[in-house]
């Protein structure tokens, strides 16, 4: 069982993030299965209820769950890998509280007020008469708090990397190393045979975290900024003045919004995942990372690429200039195949050098993550093509074969690999009770995630749209039944994992991660007369 009294503050805060993340993940997959049921039988919900669930679902999944797990892990890893103290434990605590409350308020905006502009929030939709100002305002407040939590995390992580409390070090070289520029310098020295390569200052996982966090800041500026606009509109409407939405061009808004949103999907996710793979590969193999300098350089390239790919979301917007579609939408986006391909190669090569390796849970889940990205990334590259986008945009292909494959299998399995790898470190070596449940979690999630994503993808190729309902039309019902079957496997996987974790750390341990419970009274044994 978990003895919380022996945990240090970093372990505790990381576990708090993990617990909230897993709870929100449960909410997310429950929402997912409710929507799966509706797509089989359109009498399950009223239409506005269905879309309200659809509004909450990605916010809970991405920000409530994935971001939380990642931030918690990084709060633990960055100081640990650097051998430094965290800049501010208080800010770390503030991060999970802000994000938990923010995500919860967003959920409330959907549940109580039926807010359903979806995560795309296309202008002028969010400020239209479609949703009440209470709905819009609640969503905006939730998102502002969420992005506030993201900002706090980013500041705290950057400050942890650069603070000079424990040891004085020049900031310039630290910044160069954190950006991976030393990787480029080493490559140049090797190729030109001028000078000798120097061991980089920053551990590679910290470089990935640093770079991905730059995208997190920029993304929070865009999404938080949009939410401030929504809040202003909501307040004015409540005061009796309907502000016009004509001051902002819808296409320009779409460009800015997708630039910001893509810094998550095509930016920080890919960079964080690569960094996690590298860390896990070195931990599991006990070997240094294969072609480390290229890995460092590629992470910086991926950062720059992530700033220039948003155009692939506007390939079907006919007002978008053709040059932007071709350069940003097609060519720069295609380069993500290269950057992810580098990450896959380096990870697999590092592990291969250390064989034979025992097929532990972290290794299994890591390979599952690689499999997920190997399926999801090419699906994205296919739809980021002018010809293919014309017939795939906004179909179930995009959200199935690409997005859910990436999030559930690629990212999801990678996060579980990190969870199982860090679990002993965060709990002072509490052992998971059941290897069988861990195995079941692996296979059920892998098969369920791939099966559901592929079923959705085939529905998309047969013409089924995303964000659409087809009452009275059973054309896509067979696809949706298959998707629901595989989705159910993921629910079972989640339950198996949660039972395994909770029975290993104990209910008391779980609660004491957050609040200290009164000491257990020792029962006095009365001797028999």
């Amino acid at each position: 069982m978990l003895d919380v009294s022996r945990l240090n503050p970093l372990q505790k805060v990381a576990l708090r993030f993990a617990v909230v993340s897993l709870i929100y993940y449960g909410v997310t997959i429950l929402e997912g299965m409710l929507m799966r049921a509706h797509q089989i039988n359109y009498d399950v919900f009223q239409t506005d209820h269905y879309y309200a669930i659809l509004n909450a679902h990605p916010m809970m999944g991405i920000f409530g769950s994935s971001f939380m797990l990642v931030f918690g892990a990084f709060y633990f890893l960055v100081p640990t890998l650097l051998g430094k103290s965290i800049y501010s434990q208080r800010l770390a605590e503030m991060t999970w509280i802000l994000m938990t409350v923010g995500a919860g308020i967003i959920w409330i905006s959907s549940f109580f007020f039926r807010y359903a502009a979806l995560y795309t929030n296309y202008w002028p939709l969010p400020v239209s008469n479609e949703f009440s100002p209470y709905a819009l305002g609640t969503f905006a407040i939730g998102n502002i708090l969420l992005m506030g939590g993201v900002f706090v995390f980013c500041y705290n992580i950057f400050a942890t990397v650069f603070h000079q409390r424990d040891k004085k070090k020049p900031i310039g070289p630290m910044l160069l190393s954190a950006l991976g520029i030393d990787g480029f310098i080493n490559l140049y020295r090797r190729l030109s045979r001028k000078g000798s390569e120097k061991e980089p200052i920053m551990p590679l996982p910290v470089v990935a975290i640093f770079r991905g966090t730059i995208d997190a800041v920029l993304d929070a500026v865009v999404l938080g900024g949009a939410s401030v606009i929504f809040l202003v509109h909501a307040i004015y409407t409540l005061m009796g003045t309907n502000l016009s939405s004509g001051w902002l061009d819808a296409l320009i808004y779409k460009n800015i919004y997708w630039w910001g949103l893509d810094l998550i999907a095509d930016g920080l996710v890919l960079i964080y995942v690569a960094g996690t793979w590298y860390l896990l590969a070195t931990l599991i193999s006990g070997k240094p990372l294969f072609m480390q300098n290229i890995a460092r350089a590629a992470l910086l390239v991926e950062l720059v690429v992530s700033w220039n790919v948003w155009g692939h979301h506007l390939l079907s917007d006919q007002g978008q200039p053709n040059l932007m579609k071709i350069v940003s939408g097609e060519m720069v986006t295609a380069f993500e195949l290269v950057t992810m391909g580098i990450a896959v190669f380096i990870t697999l090569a590092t592990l291969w050098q250390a064989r034979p390796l025992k097929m532990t849970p972290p290794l299994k889940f890591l390979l599952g993550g690689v499999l997920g990205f190997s399926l999801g990334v090419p699906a994205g590259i296919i739809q980021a093509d002018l010809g293919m986008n014309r017939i795939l945009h906004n179909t179930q292909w995009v959200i199935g074969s690409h997005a859910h494959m990436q999030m559930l299998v690629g990212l999801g399995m990678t996060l579980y690999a990190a969870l199982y790898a860090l679990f002993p470190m965060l709990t002072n070596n509490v052992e998971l009770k059941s290897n069988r449940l861990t195995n079941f979690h692996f296979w059920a999630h892998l098969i369920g995630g791939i099966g559901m994503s592929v079923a959705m993808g085939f529905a998309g190729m047969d013409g089924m749209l995303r964000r659409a309902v087809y009452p009275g039309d059973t054309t896509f019902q067979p696809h949706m039944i298959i998707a629901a079957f595989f989705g159910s496997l993921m629910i079972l996987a989640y339950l198996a994992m949660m039972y395994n974790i909770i029975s290993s750390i104990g209910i008391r341990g779980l609660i004491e991660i957050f609040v200290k419970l009164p000491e257990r009274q020792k029962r006095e044994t009365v001797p028999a007369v």
Partner: protein
Amino acid sequence: MIESSDVLSVMKVVYIIYGMIIFSFIGMYALGISRSKQILPGIKVPFYGWIGFLVFVGVGLHLLTYHTIPWVKLDLSRNKVKVDKEFNISIADYKFQLPDNKLLIEEDQMVRFNLESKDYTYGFGLFREDGTMLFQMQVVPESRNDIVWKFNKKANYTIRSTEYAGPKGGNLFVKNAVIVATNAEIAQLISQKELLQN
């Protein structure tokens, strides 16, 4: 002319084959990594060869579709394309406002659809009777939204909004709004319509 259904049929096969290759590779890798002796022939993949292959695939896909999928060049040069017919359609308050009950198009005609949104961001897609998509585009307010298409098969198409514009727009469509038929059939339909009006 190649249609979307042809492209997607090929894509289904390619996707299945690709999936099998990836499953096999990861499976073999997992087997190999847990054994000290190589039980399967090892393939040394040179790193730079791998990068070259990825660049080839990434760039090659776009070159391939540019040269084989006809609507790519058509879309990029649609300003200069001479069309046989033009339809102006607007969307407002979750309703398609079509110039006519049925949009009649003769086989092999080049057609331009000009869409205007008076309020939200919608989509405009044409779907066959079996539910498969012919094409789609976004319809953004205060923006250019036009598409040029050559119809070379007789068919009836449903117009459906392909972008979410709120719960009311989740099922926005006009069934069999576009009819593509032979010259004679179109003429017959027009005369039937005139008779009804008179």
